[in-house]
């Protein structure tokens, strides 16, 4: 037995020669919490069964291909649960010895899971955009792959200012997530010198949005809802609940572009982007899954690639080493968005470009030209160090 092992190691060393690393087994998990939801406004947004999990399958393949040369193996377990079962699902993963966990859940559940997992576990938030998680509610064992609401709003704001469209009408929904998003746009306006000339709330009263004649009502109601607004250059739609934003373009009283939750949307990734080698990512993903990539898939893929990159460079698989490397100066990762992505060491947020997507193509990519920062132009998006109330990383 011992002899067989030695032979194996010798064989691995022959392949390596350069890496000098020993065999490492990397075990991770994706924990997805599913919530009861209404169907989306558009069939294009129907949620596939393997939403997010498909990104893990691709990441495992990518990491394994690299790992082969270094003697590193990767296994990622995928678990889905409802909110009630989230803790039990986490406990099962921990009992199984898994210490690297990518979480797709709402902010409250992400925090609950991070606190339950404790300091010996490293979690990656691949879904929740709440800025608070990067602010006072940050956790030392939680890194954020998903961009925050603040980053997304800033990405839109920079583009609008670059266009010299500084007068905004803000239409927001009535649910807490909509209000939080509206607040992100207010802050972005203040940060980049735009003015919100008028705000309106579109109340979520429920309703048969997709019935046969739904468009007749929409076509009559929305112009009325948006008439008599103060003079504005564009309309910002703060609709995190998918209640009204897709109806705004073409139905406004004043002919104005829409940005935010409809029209020009800030996204971490989309299936049409092909710049910076993204075509290869799209092809690999589509060959594997038979469908187009979604933001959640990309974010899960990216979380596991962060793990893979940190393992490749350090030869370790324990959370403490990987966390230290990811937050350190040497870490950088190519993510098909033109610039290397890195982490903000003060709150664990992944710095990244934000794509501005019209539903078919990249209209633009933020940060925009001319928005400078002493550290990185990427730090013009989202909470900067002095603004963040996060202290868990000190």
């Amino acid at each position, binding site marked *: 037995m011992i002899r067989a092992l030695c032979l194996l190691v010798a064989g691995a060393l022959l392949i390596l*020669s350069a890496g000098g690393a020993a065999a490492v087994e990397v075990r991770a998990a994706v924990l997805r919490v599913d919530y009861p939801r209404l169907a989306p406004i558009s069939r294009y947004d129907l949620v596939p069964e393997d939403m997010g999990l498909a990104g893990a399958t691709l990441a495992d393949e990518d990491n394994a291909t690299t790992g082969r*040369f270094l003697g590193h193996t990767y296994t990622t377990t995928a678990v889905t649960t409802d909110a009630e079962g989230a803790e039990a699902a986490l406990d099962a993963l921990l009992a199984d010895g898994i210490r690297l966990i990518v979480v797709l859940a709402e902010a409250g559940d992400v925090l609950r899971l991070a606190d339950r997992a404790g300091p010996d576990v490293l979690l990656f938030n691949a879904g929740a955009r709440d800025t608070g998680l990067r602010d006072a509610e940050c956790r030392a064992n939680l890194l954020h792959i998903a961009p925050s609401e603040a980053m997304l709003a800033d990405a839109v704001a920079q583009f609008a200012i670059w266009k010299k469209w500084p007068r905004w009408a803000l239409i927001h929904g009535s649910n807490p997530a909509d209000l939080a998003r509206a607040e992100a746009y207010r802050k972005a306006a203040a940060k980049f010198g735009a003015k919100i000339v008028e705000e309106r709330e579109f109340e979520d009263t429920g309703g048969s949005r997709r019935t046969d004649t739904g468009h007749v009502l929409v076509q009559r109601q929305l112009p009325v809802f948006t008439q008599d607004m103060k003079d504005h250059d564009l309309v910002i739609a703060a609709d995190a609940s998918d209640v009204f934003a897709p109806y705004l373009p073409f139905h406004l009283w004043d002919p104005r572009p829409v940005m935010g939750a409809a029209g020009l949307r800030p996204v971490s990734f989309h299936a049409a982007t092909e710049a910076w080698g993204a075509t290869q990512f799209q092809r690999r993903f589509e*060959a594997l899954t038979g469908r187009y990539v979604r933001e959640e898939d990309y974010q899960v893929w990216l979380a596991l690639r962060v793990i893979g990159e940190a393992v490749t460079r350090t030869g370790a698989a324990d959370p403490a080493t990987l966390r230290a490397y990811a937050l350190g100066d040497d870490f950088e990762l*190519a993510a098909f968005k*033109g610039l290397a992505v890195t982490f903000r060491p003060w709150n664990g947020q992944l710095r990244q470009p934000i794509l501005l997507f019209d539903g078919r193509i990249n209209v633009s990519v933020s940060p925009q030209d001319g928005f400078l920062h002493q550290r990185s132009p990427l730090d013009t998006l989202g909470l900067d160090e002095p603004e963040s109330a996060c202290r868990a990383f000190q």
Partner: protein
Amino acid sequence: MKPLILAAGLALAATGAQANKVYVSNEKGNTVTVLDSTTWQVLTEFPAGNRPRGITMSPDGSLLYVCASDDDTVRVFDAETYQELYTLPSGPDPELFVLDHSGSPLYIANEDDNLVTVVDTEAHTVLAEIPVGVEPEGMGISPDGKFVVNTSETTNMAHFISTEDYEIKHNILVDQRPRYAEFSADGKKLFVTSEIGGTVSVIDIAPDGTPTLSYKVSFEVPGVLPEWLQPVGAKATSDGKWLFVALGPANRVAVIDQQSHEVVDYIMVGQRVWQLAFTPDEKYLLTTNGNSNDITVIDVAAHKAIKSIPVGQQPWGVVVAPD
């Protein structure tokens, strides 16, 4: 052999410079543009398959090889008549390739399948498929022909493949998105560009072929965000003096001293400069500029851009016919 050299000498004396054809692959235009290296006039543009990227020539200059990425094949053209002669089995999505010094085999990077495919250019058969890292791209061959180096963009490695048994003998980790591998003429150094890492890794090659990462060159241009200094194509002069590196969206070609690794010059060229090729006398260096749809001619000795010439849509690769 001798009469040939004599004839070439006579031609040189008569015209002052040898005219060589320049072939540019246009990734979005699905064509190859042909230019004349003395007049810098466009001679013609011909269809080259879907998404032509990597482009090279047989040592005698008679055959033009083009990676038609979206056709999953390598198209082979008569370099004089531009007629397609045949295709070579390439594996899926061929992007870049390198030809053995003898003219065969051809080593092809298959970006989608994490493979390097080895193709016999005479028998038109696949000799080997070598599993490499994720998104293989850059392909270089050592001057002695013993090693082919492939760079994998997502794995971030340079893989050293022995041309004897097609096995990977060494792997060297480099910075993010390695794009291109270029040996110095004496074979003692290998330069690997990293697009997102923003560096050129200098790898020393020991006499027995063992590679060691020894230095990383980085770049700095006043007024250009460091994030946009993205090294892509690279070419080394055969006198061992200069390494030219295309810096992509920085619209510049950097000139690096091969010995001291110092960056001595930045040459302004067209937009999103991608791949490079010397004329055979190394008097001129040509750059493909993907966003401005042109190529720039650089005077190698003077480190100056002297001319830009419009070509097809999104020029990607460039090769110059041998003398």
